[in-house]
């Protein structure tokens, strides 16, 4: 369920008028989604859910409380306002409280496509049908998920701030498997524009990988030169920025960016000189939400530039305390790419592995940002500049911070879907990396 900007603004004003607190922050968000889920070449659990929600944070002095719900009747709104005020009055003072922001200037959102909003279940089914036909013709089993949706969110304060963003989203991921269970391939994408989706082309990639990964051989664990396809890179880079790039925890001594003896490593060369990572909500390839934490505008930010750690997210409170500046969480990410094609990377690799994507990534050591996880849906051995055969999956134990010091070549930056970052808009290149730590073999297919 979606609201246009004028209706959202009127509703926010109505809630703010109900507030008896010294100040308040009001948020609304809603969506209408349609999805087709399929497995074993047939539809499974498809649906069309929608929701609309509302949250209010009330402030009395430095006493803060919040409430959220999805009953937007007059009575429902009034009840939630009252609940947040009751909670605030009960809460002890928060010494870190800062009053809400006043009006801000926002860029115009560019992640909305009417064609996506209008995409019907019939259109979704028509996109998927060629994929299933192709799978049946090749005697493969296709499983996947195609979801389209339209959503909105708004953020308003009693000090006059109002931010609104509406967007559409398309996600299609699919896995093709050989009937004997020894081969598996995957492809996936996200976009905001349904007309950009070529489900059959994605299906062809997944099916080609399924066939080529059939009956993989085992290789010993060890450090390998690897070519990481964009999905794998998106997960490692996306998780690192999302979970680790925080000024406060660095200053407090509990982060990879903590400097020995105190303070953070901002301004230091932490990554290889060929690494640059930015966020820009107006990036046409990966547009993001126009506002971020506390209603601050989501501005273009350089996180890493030529290997130098340039920015960490920083709350308004911590900025004040540390004399830094507020830096909002990114609403999109783009890692600068290069010009080396995957074929060229293969050609220049004497012995290495081509990795399609990762699965079940978890942090092992926050000090070094050591992650563990597994390869999935297509690992191929490269020998003397050629892909020679499929190999079994591996568990890795690797830190993206360390890995981004060993990047030997990069492809162009492309929009990518990683299982851990999901629909978050991110563009990354394919990477050629030296000495990637694959610590054990997995015979999962």
């Amino acid at each position: 369920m979606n609201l246009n900007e004028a209706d959202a603004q009127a509703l926010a004003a109505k809630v703010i008028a109900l507030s008896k607190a010294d100040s308040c922050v009001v948020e609304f968000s809603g969506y209408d989604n349609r999805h087709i889920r399929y497995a074993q070449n047939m539809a499974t659990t498809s649906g069309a859910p929608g929701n609309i929600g509302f949250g209010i944070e009330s402030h009395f002095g430095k006493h803060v409380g919040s409430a959220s719900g999805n009953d937007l009747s007059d009575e429902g709104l009034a009840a939630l306002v009252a609940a947040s005020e009751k909670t605030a009055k009960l809460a002890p003072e928060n010494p870190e409280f800062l009053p809400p922001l006043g009006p801000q200037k926002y860029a115009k959102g560019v992640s909305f496509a009417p064609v996506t909003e209008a995409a019907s279940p019939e259109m979704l089914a028509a996109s998927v049908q060629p994929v299933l036909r192709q799978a049946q013709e090749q005697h493969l089993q296709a499983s996947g998920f195609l979801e389209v949706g339209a959503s909105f969110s708004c953020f308003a304060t009693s000090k006059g701030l109002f931010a609104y963003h509406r967007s559409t989203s398309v996600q299609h991921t699919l896995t093709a498997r050989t009937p004997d269970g020894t081969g598996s391939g995957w492809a996936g994408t996200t976009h905001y524009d349904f007309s950009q989706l070529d489900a059959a082309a994605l299906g062809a990639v997944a099916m080609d990988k399924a066939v080529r990964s059939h009956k993989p051989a085992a290789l010993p664990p060890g450090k390998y030169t690897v070519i990481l396809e964009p999905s794998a890179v998106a997960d490692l880079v996306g998780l690192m920025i999302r979970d680790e790039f925080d000024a406060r925890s660095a200053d407090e001594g509990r982060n990879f960016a903590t400097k020995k003896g105190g303070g953070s490593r901002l301004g230091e060369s932490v990554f290889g000189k060929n690494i640059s990572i930015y966020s820009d909500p107006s990036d046409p390839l990966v547009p993001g939400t126009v506002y971020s934490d506390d209603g601050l505008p989501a501005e273009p930010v350089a996180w890493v530039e030529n290997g130098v750690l340039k920015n960490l997210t920083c709350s308004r409170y911590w900025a004040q305390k540390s004399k830094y500046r507020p830096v909002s969480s990114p609403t999109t990410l783009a890692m600068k790419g290069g010009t080396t094609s995957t074929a060229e990377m293969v050609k220049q690799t004497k012995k290495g592995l081509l990795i399609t994507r990762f699965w079940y990534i978890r942090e092992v050591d926050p000090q070094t940002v050591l992650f563990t996880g597994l390869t999935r849906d297509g690992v191929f051995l490269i020998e003397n500049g050629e892909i020679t055969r499929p190999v079994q999956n591996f568990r890795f134990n690797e830190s993206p911070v360390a890995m981004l010091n060993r990047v030997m070549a990069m492809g162009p930056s492309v929009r990518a879907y990683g299982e851990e970052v999901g629909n978050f808009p991110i563009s990354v290149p394919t990477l050629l990396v030296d000495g990637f730590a694959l610590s054990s073999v997995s015979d999962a297919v």
Partner: protein
Amino acid sequence: MGGCACATLLPPAYLLGTHNAAALEIAEKLDLAGKLRLADLALDAAKKAGASYADFRLCRYQDEYLEVKERRVETSATGLSVGFAVRVLLDGTWGYAASPLATEAEIRQAVTRAAQVAKASQPLQSRKFVLEDIPAYQDRWDMPMKADPFKVSTNEKIAKLLEINEAALKAGADYATAVFAFVREEKFFASSRGSRIEQTRVRVIPETEVTVIDKATGHFSTRAGFAPPRGSGYDYILSYDFIGEAAKAAEQAREKLKAKPVVADTYDLVLDPTNLWLTIHESVGHPTELDRALGWEANFAGTTFVTPDQLGKLKYGSSLMNIIADRSQEGGLSTVGYDDDGVRSAGSEFAIVKDGIFVNYQTAIGQAQLIGQKASNGCAFADSWSTFPIQRMPNVSLAPNPKACTLDDLFADVKRGIYIMGNGSWSIDQQRHNFQFGGQLFYEIKNGKLGGMLRDVAYQGDTTGFWNSMDGLGDKSTYFLGGAPNCGKGQPEQTAPVSHGAVPARFRKVNVLNTARKDLA
């Protein structure tokens, strides 16, 4: 459908502040008679749309989230979410629709949308879904609970959280976080097979963590609390010694900074149930889900190495291994009277692994007959009114040793080993073979005795090799009910609460990594 009537018709009603009589019919204000009336309306509309089966779920979720960092309240929030879903099976194809507005008009529209989705998907339906007979129930089930957490004042809860952090800070922690989250789940289920079921349960989710810093070296360490989430009342919070644990955790985190790094090698492991419950979840709970075995999760959660031809044959573990599924265990997060397919689950305990042999999958409706079984064993769950019920775990637990065996008995037969408590990082492959688990605390075992603290430990293994190496198991006096509030599965992804009972167990010759080693490969 994106521009459905909801988006264009409803907001003006809110904005104009009109008395929207229909909107007032939301579940929050409905009595049983009202719910029954809406259910009849939905099921009748579904029948008219041609559905051979339909169900209607009307749910209300109330939650409270309190987070304290050091000596300040970071978050004090309450939430309420109400809505319904209609699911139809039309010519063997599923379709569903969900909405927060339980009005007559919206229910009719949702049925139309669900039928539209099903019809649109029919060209993709190479095999039709067939449902087994499901008995009809008219019942009400409420989770037994002593103290309703929503009746305890927020002040009292915050005071407790502040007390926990104070204990940690006084004991030397540099940072401390304490969280209490509470959820009340109310579900009304009605199906075209005749069931009308009301259920209520409550979840209590405590989370604590302390951090200590060594500024000179730039190193830090953390220690997370061991208190698991439970299907319980506030009495659970009162019964757990959070204060004592917080103080101890601060000391242990400090000790961890100076602990001896583990030497990577194979070791005998004694896993405390505070660690083992998660290993059970990942390496036994997930692999024995029938939808994974059927390939229905191939694109996300994955498939499983436990294929249907191995039913009754696969030697999953040693003969000491007995894994029981239940939805009745006191405090269990999966404890419930009926699952979200309307299948009776209370009291229907079944074995998944018996004396080391794999004997049963967990199932939802429309699955069991595909492997020659008669009916679902009641393991369907939807995490919201807005999601489709899929097969999710009941409480899946490791049965205690019938013979007397204490933790010290398990240590006694270890020459060179490691004792692991609490959960660290965890990861397992998509077919549930290769896993790696960390922990919170690690201690050497030398010649049958517990020694000093170790650090940087993670263990790797393959599921059947690991469980077949188990040669020691604690008795019922060592039983502990662990669990997670947020197990992920399905597309769109759903999170399910699930509990796992465990006892300490001994495993031989397990591969152990040093996670701080530069050369991990």
